[in-house]
């Protein structure tokens, strides 16, 4: 939740001066690109104390993994610029208060996550002899829809970006997400940040290593790996494919084992050194040899070679299509009980919902008790699925299950409905512990979705996604 100015909170609850609300919406269009930094901004904020407002309508929609909005601005004098696509808007959802208009990101702390103008329209209308209607309509995309769901993950070497250098190797889920945001910033020129984990650690996000580096001797049979170092390991004995120059296949990824007489720089390598990974641009010539980087382990191996579990997003089933940051982050968070939300100021935050979390906002059916709600709806879903089975390894030879205790006593179904299973196959999982963690995380997420609700309230700038809210309904 955002900690807003006390005057704004008072106005949100009681209106201004009393008994009603005076909306104040901060709406400034600012160019996004660094090349246009410092150029003109356009302020179309709605100030209830003046008569020169143009903002007709503003809407901002946030949900887990998606966001957007709409702005409608009067263009009666055709002074609104022709093209504001690409500009960003940090909408401030404020009010006129006893301490002046409160709508900014600083004092009031009333600003919601950023949105970008992805589409604009001009509307001209009006009946004959009536007042002409001239509007600009802006469709906005938020951090998810305009950035994370658009930008492809590009970590590693072109053209496949499979993290060949092991940037994410041996990192926890949280660190992986942090590194992804760093990569996103490098890719976009933006300055996204990730809040410290703090109390939002579910014990999984800070410990699970989705892309571990494994040394020969510990390879898990039937698991796919990418070779990072060749060492003394003979990968051909455990499923690896060794190729001699002259037989390289263009576009395949190799790691140099022996240089011999081959000039690997002629076929895509950055240097002629052992363990350099390259995408072959030709068949090659000479006596040099190289392993194909990906292999499916047929044995535990021996020697000093190391390999990393394949990036789940870039396994053979999905090669050829790049995952977006949103997809990648989501696949990582599925290993945990956490959720990633966008906050104001280009910040992200991990949230781990816990029963012990304090209520952050309370809304009342009576305004005399505090911030009112006007309508509250609660809904309960039949829990379907009600148990989860997670398989691991390439051959699905390991598994673990999670049972909802409202429907199962042990493994016996005792509920009012019927057993409904959700099956997941995580080929990169190599232990039943991983399967068990994933099953319980999935089960918790299903459980959290059991209850639904909707509440309509007067504007509240405090509330953020994943906040714990409470509605006290004294209507009888």
């Amino acid at each position, binding site marked *: 939740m955002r900690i807003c100015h006390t005057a704004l909170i008072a106005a949100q609850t009681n209106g201004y001066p009393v008994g009603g609300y005076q909306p104040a919406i901060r709406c400034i269009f600012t160019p996004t690109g660094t090349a246009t930094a410092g150029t003109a901004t356009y302020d179309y904020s709605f100030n209830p104390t003046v008569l020169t407002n143009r903002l007709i309508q503003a809407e901002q929609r946030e949900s887990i993994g998606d966001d957007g909005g709409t702005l409608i601005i009067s263009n009666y004098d055709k002074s609104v610029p022709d093209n504001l696509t690409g500009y960003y808007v940090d909408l401030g959802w404020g009010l006129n208060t006893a301490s002046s208009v409160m709508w900014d990101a600083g004092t009031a702390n009333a600003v919601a996550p950023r949105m970008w103008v992805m589409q604009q329209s001009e509307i001209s209308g009006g009946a004959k002899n009536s007042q*002409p209607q*001239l509007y600009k309509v802006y469709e906005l995309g938020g951090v998810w829809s305009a950035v994370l769901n658009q930008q492809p993950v590009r970590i590693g070497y072109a053209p496949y970006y499979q993290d060949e250098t092991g940037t994410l190797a041996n990192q926890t889920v949280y660190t992986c997400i942090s590194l992804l945001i760093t990569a996103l910033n490098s890719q976009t020129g933006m300055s996204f940040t990730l809040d410290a984990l703090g109390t939002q650690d579910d014990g999984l996000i800070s410990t699970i290593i989705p892309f571990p580096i494994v040394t020969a001797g510990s390879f898990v049979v039937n698991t796919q790996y990418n070779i990072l170092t060749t060492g003394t390991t003979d990968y051909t004995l455990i499923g690896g494919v060794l190729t001699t120059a002259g037989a390289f296949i263009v576009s395949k990824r190799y790691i140099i084992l022996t240089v011999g007489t081959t000039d690997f720089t002629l076929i895509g390598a950055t240097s002629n050194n052992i363990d350099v990974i390259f995408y072959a641009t030709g068949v090659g010539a000479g006596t040099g040899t190289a392993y194909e980087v990906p292999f499916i382990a047929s044995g535990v191996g021996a020697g000093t070679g190391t390999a990393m579990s394949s990036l789940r997003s870039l396994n053979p089933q999905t090669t050829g299509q790049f995952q977006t940051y949103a997809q990648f982050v989501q696949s990582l968070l599925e290993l945990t009980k956490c959720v990633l939300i966008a906050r104001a100021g280009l910040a992200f935050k991990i949230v781990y919902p816990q029963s012990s979390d304090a209520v952050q906002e309370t809304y009342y059916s009576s305004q005399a008790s505090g911030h009112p709600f006007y309508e509250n709806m609660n809904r309960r879903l039949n829990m379907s699925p009600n148990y989860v089975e997670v398989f691991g390894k390439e051959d699905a030879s390991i598994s673990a299950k999670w049972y909802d205790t409202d429907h199962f006593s042990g493994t016996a179904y005792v509920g009012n409905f019927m057993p409904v299973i959700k099956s997941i196959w995580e080929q990169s999982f190599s232990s039943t512990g991983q399967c068990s963690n994933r099953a319980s995380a999935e089960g918790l997420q299903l459980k959290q979705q059991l*209850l639904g609700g*909707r*509440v*309509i309230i007067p504007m509240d700038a405090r509330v953020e996604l994943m*906040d714990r809210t409470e509605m006290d309904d*004294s209507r009888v």
Partner: protein
Amino acid sequence: MATVVLAPTNNGSTMSWSVLVGAASKWEACLTNDGDTSYSGATWVDGTEVLGLFGMDNLPSTVAKVTDVTVTVIVRRNNASLANIRPALKLSGGSVQYSGSNFTSSTSYVTISYSFGSFTIAEVNGMECGAELGTNFWSTFCTQVYATVTYIPVAVYPTDPLVRVSGITRTFRAWDKTYQVVLNLGSNMTNYVSPISGKIQSAIEPAVLPSGPGYTRADYEKWLAGGSALAKRFPQIPYEVWLKVMGQKQAPLFGPGY
């Protein structure tokens, strides 16, 4: 339904009991059912019945509606002769209400209760409870007074502490004065238009510049000359006022008729 027991917190607006044993004040003497360890009460005064009232705890915030208030007193006689003992309740600014007759001659403590019915939350928070003690030549002692409030509790949602805000839609519409938030919780992710309160009106009518040049002086003059009922009734209505009548919030700053 739920119940809550309210205890005395101070001597009330009427406190005519003269006996005080085992406590610093009469209301403290009547906090617990501790027999003769601490008690208050009345001695015989010309055969009249003696009223004692106590201010009581406020209701907890979880009460939505009070359905009944029952006042209970735990009393005894110091002589086995009949005396009328009537639980009493007084609302703020109101008169004292009494139970019907309850004659007792017990020299051991007995419990006497009376249901006074339903009241508003504010009335209960301002009420005083106690009893009118008949004396009948001897004394009557009271070791405890309390009120049992039966109520419908405030419904608290969501019932599962893990349900969180899963969707937020903030809306401002100047043209119909809507300024609100729709929160989706848990699995509820659907867009929604409420049949009950889909919009919340702001206190002021938001002022927005008109789209287009709006009405001009030429339009105003046409209106004046048009002979409408309003024009006949207010032939001298100023242009600026006319604009407001026509629903235009501000005179246009440009236009051929300006």
